[in-house]
């Protein structure tokens, strides 16, 4: 199984916070109200945020370990 991580398109993010509400690992924060930030260390690639994002601007990317 290749590892996946959630990646936010920060240019398109509206900073609504839907993603941070569903993240089971609390890996997401919106520190400055401009865009979401996902911790690479905490993200387990479950894809909940990507499914929830109303703008559909979070994608799951395969990372080599």
């Amino acid at each position, binding site marked *: 199984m290749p590892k996946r991580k959630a990646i936010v398109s920060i240019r398109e993010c509206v*900073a609504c916070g*839907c993603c941070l509400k569903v993240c089971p690992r609390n890996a997401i924060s919106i520190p400055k109200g401009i865009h979401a930030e996902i911790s690479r260390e905490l993200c387990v690639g479950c894809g909940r945020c990507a499914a929830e994002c109303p703008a559909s601007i979070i994608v799951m990317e395969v990372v080599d370990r």
Partner: protein
Amino acid sequence: MNKKKNWYDYLWIFSLTYLVLGFFNILFAWLGLLCFFIPLLISIINGNKAYCNKYCGRGQLFSLVGGRFGLSRRKDIPKWMKSKYFRYGFLAFFFAMFFLMLWNTYLVFAGAKDLSKIVTLLWTFKLPWHWAYHGTLFSDGAAQFAFGFYSVMLTSTVLGFVTMLLFKPRSWCVYCPMGTMTQLICRVKNKSE
């Protein structure tokens, strides 16, 4: 997997109550100013979108109805709807309509116009709303503002509801004028620091 709920996870009750109260006494519409000033103050003072992220009852209502109750197709929102042009354009349009509403309120305050007991939906459809008006202790202008402000709130709820059905539950958040405005404030504030 369920996260522990916080007190602010129930603010959707406030949003729902607000909409219902407007059917009984229009003067309750004034309470909606909270949904304007709180997010603005949070973004101006703290430079973040904690309102959208945590407290927005409107968003919670959409995620409850569209998410939990499943009244949503859960499709991607069209590209143009998340573009900067549309988001800022909608903000500008919303602002213009808001000031038009304030102008009408002023005219009633000044006595140049009579109070019209209607709620205007989608800036076009005039719904009779006299049954929610039982007089006002203040000027007729105070009631006019209530009708105008409730029109704004009802219109945005209807728009949000339609995009909830068509796209993802909280699609409204993508083009919500308050969200766009607070994000803009955060951009400016955090750049200058």
